[in-house]
């Protein structure tokens, strides 16, 4: 029994010594755990020894232990308060001071706009497929029904690497690559960079983005082409926008259609509208029923399957949507321009 008394005294001294060294919350917590932990704490250990004490001595020893425990609790509590951050009354601050500036990067407007386009087609069950920017003459022209040496090629001014290797002038080669590998039904869009031999000016650049699309299945008609593109344009612009389909020519579609939307800038009312040039319409998409020869080139039977394809310039469409007058802004990468799109 005397031993236990002495032990309590020693532990008490040790506790005081340890406490004197405490400098912060963490070391205080360590001491608290050491002494007060319910399972392995020192005080729990002393209580354990109480069962070996004679019954008549138990009350005295028990009180000693309890006093020690209370002492430890009080001392720890007092120190905890000391270390706790002093709770002052809220200082009166100028609440009109500006809030902390939150900063986040801006997406490039073309890629932002491309994503908007992609999202509309994703909802219609289209998959997004990518392909190489360096292409062969066959994928860029031959398979798409451009005869060699045909003037139709002049509309796709090409940057060549060799006679046969070139920078793709449109993303249509991706459609050929997909049709070579998969049988219908096919429903894809192909966004990406395309290249033309064009000197930079406000509406022409040697590199820009396109999104092209392709649907091939049983029973696909020109009416489906119209339905799909109407839905797309109304979602991209607004529900009431006027849309016009008119005959056109592309080697890879037959019949072909150009899709115009009304000029929302002048509403077709200004003779010298900067955007539509007074015509009231903006060319926005090229499209058409996939040419039977293109289907044959990829071993799809044009008597059984039909399809439609379309394509639009992302830059051009974004210029119209955001009223950007010069296409070159997109590739100057002036952050005063780009950062505006962090808000879109």
């Amino acid at each position: 029994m005397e031993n236990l008394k002495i032990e309590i005294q020693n532990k008490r001294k040790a506790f005081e010594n340890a406490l004197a060294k405490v400098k912060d919350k963490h070391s205080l917590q360590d001491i608290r755990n050491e002494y007060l932990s319910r399972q392995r704490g020192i005080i729990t250990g002393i209580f354990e020894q109480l069962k070996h004490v004679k019954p008549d001595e138990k009350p005295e020893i028990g009180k000693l232990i309890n006093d020690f425990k209370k002492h430890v609790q009080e001392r720890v509590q007092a120190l905890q308060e000391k270390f706790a951050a002093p709770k002052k009354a809220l200082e009166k601050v100028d609440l009109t001071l500006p809030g902390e500036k939150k900063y986040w990067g801006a997406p490039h407007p073309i890629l932002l706009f491309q994503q908007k386009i992609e999202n509309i087609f994703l909802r219609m069950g289209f998959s997004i497929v990518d392909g190489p920017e360096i292409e062969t003459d066959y994928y860029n022209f031959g398979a798409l029904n451009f005869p060699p040496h045909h003037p139709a090629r002049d509309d796709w001014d090409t940057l060549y690497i060799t006679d046969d290797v070139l920078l793709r002038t449109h993303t249509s080669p991706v459609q050929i690559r997909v049709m070579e590998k998969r049988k219908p039904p096919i429903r894809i869009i192909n966004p990406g960079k395309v290249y033309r031999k064009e000197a930079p000016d406000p509406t022409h650049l040697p590199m820009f983005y396109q999104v092209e699309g392709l649907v091939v299945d049983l029973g696909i008609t020109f009416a489906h082409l119209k339905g799909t593109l109407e839905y797309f344009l109304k979602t991209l612009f607004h529900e009431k926008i006027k849309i016009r389909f008119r005959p056109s020519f592309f080697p890879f579609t037959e019949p072909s259609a150009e899709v115009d939307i009304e000029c929302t800038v002048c509403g077709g009312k200004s003779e010298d509208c900067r955007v539509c040039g007074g015509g009231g319409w903006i060319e926005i998409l090229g499209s058409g029923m996939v040419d039977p020869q293109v289907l044959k080139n990829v071993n799809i039977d044009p008597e059984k399957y039909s399809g439609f394809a379309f394509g639009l310039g992302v830059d051009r469409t974004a210029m119209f949507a955001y009223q950007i007058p010069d296409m070159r802004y997109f590739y100057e990468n002036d952050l005063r321009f780009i950062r505006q799109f962090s808000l879109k």
Partner: protein
Amino acid sequence: MKISLDWIQNYIDVDLPVSRLVEVLDNIGLLIEDWEEKNGDIILDVETYANRPDTLGHMGIARELAAALGLALKEQRLPLTETNENISDLIDVQIWDEDLCPRYCGMIVKNIKIGPSPEWLIKKIEAMELNPINNVVDVTNYVLFATAQPIHAFDLDKIAGRKIIIRRAKQGEKLLSLEAKDVDLTSEMLVIADEEKPVALAGVIGGENTAVSDSSQNVFIESAHFDPVSVRKTSKATGIQTDAAYRFERGADVSFPPKAARMAASLFSQFGGKVCKGIVDVYPKPRKIKTVMLRDHRVTSLLGVEIDNGFIEKTLADLGFQMENKQPGIWQVKIPHFRIDIEREADLVEEIARFYGYEKIPIQLPPLRSLEPILDPKKERIQTLRQLLFHYGFDEVVNFSFMDPEKEKKFTSDLDPIPIRNPISTKAAFLRTTLLGGLLENVAWNTNRGAEGVHIFEIGNIFHMDNETYNEHLRLSMVMTGSVGERHWKEKSKEGSFFHLKGTCEALMAQLRYGSFSFQEENHPHYQEGCSLVLHFKGEEIGCLGAVDQKILDAYLLKQEVWAAEINLSLLFEKQAQAFQFSAVVKYPSVNRDVSFVADNNVAFEKIREALEKLHLPYLEKFTLYDRFAGSSIPQDKVSLSFRFIFRRPDRTLQADEVDVFQEKIIDTLKARFHFQLREGGEN
């Protein structure tokens, strides 16, 4: 192509307001880009297509308008004043290369009074934005713009030996063209020659020596058909672009040359000319009329609307097609020679749709068929990267894929650049082998315009060649200089730094779940010596970062420090990312120990980290370096390092004395290995 409404009236009687005409033409695919009033006439600017050479003349446009408006084409009367001479006595025409010249017609008109054209002709020529020259030249242009059939007038008396030979040129032959330029001819070019020499480049341009001049009297009219590809190649090779070549290379009407010759002869009669009897028409293998089958159910299944068979028959007949009804709903359609674009059933369906009206075709969504989506994990990862980079404050840029070869040289690398054969400029003659060039260009542009900081990234392809193969690889590159964001009263401004960029790389790798990457100190040609790290993943080099090399910065006239990183995403995305795995949260509290040391400032942190990891301390959950400084309170060449060690047991609360043992072990190790000293004053 310019179209005069006055001129159109020669072929149809049309009396409609311009706005209505524009609408009608737009709807059948002859887009009017613009129109203007000129000398009491209306001039339309019509967009024409490469497959429709028949619309490159007023007659073709009139034919389309007539079909659209239900009008009849007027008959053309071409009266001649004839002499008694026979053309066959005056000229001998031989086609030696009939593959390139399937048909050659000629007529001769004598005693023309060369002089200014009459008023009506001048007006037409001016409407085409050409300068009137004299009545003969103006007539040839008139016929071209009327019919889309180019013709040429030779001074008959200047044709040596009275012989016209259509043959390939001999290597080394020359032709003095009407543009007064010597054209070097090759054996691939077709020429019109007399007995001695070439007198015209077939279908492209006439020669000066046989040109009609003020003193000419007798004219030989050429009206021929030339191979489109041959004309195009010759025009491209010589760089001579003419209205004639433009039409021949698209394909002229093989049936038309006699008519065009007669049209010219008839007009020359009006200027006092006497037309010799007969016409030369060398046409060794007359072309057959093409026939295409058309089925009404195909019209419906392609357009998605049923169109009345009567409408189909009438439309095609109005356009000049001959229809033969084989069985109900099936026709054999004979294609006139002027419609070289019509070869298949789908082409006829387009004709029907054009005149039916695209606007009348219903609007339907395609039937919903479930189909196997084509997945693109690369695209998803790029999206993840972009979102993170925006979050870390980087702006996104897109640069051209071209590179200035001069600048390319500064980026020493083992990638062989791909030259573009016909670049838009010498400064864009290579495809880029690195994204860094474009990004530095952007730094310069923005710095010059007052930006205090530029923190940007680009994700795009770089290109290089290996022997004969052309490769493209997806890269991510980040560049930073100066501070990010605006200065604020409550925050320190965040300066771009090597460690900012390194942290971004670490975060991106972690977020893509490529956790087991490592950096190695290695020199890289894009970066200053001793100032770059190479990023490794599973033993492969997948990126690098550092302070951009001074001579590269000089090339972009950049004065400030620029940090950059480039990651090969093509390579990285081939690697398997770690699967995400949940781990249970330990409910027992941790024991944290903060320890500060004074260390030699040349001890690499990486070595310290390795030494600590090698201790394999149980329950050491993690440790961080939370402070590092040198300065007045620290001896020279020394640095203060403060670590926090976090210990935790999964099964119970750790005792202080247990942790003491671990802490001692750490301290002893660092003292022994690196001569660390404990710093009194703890974590200050």
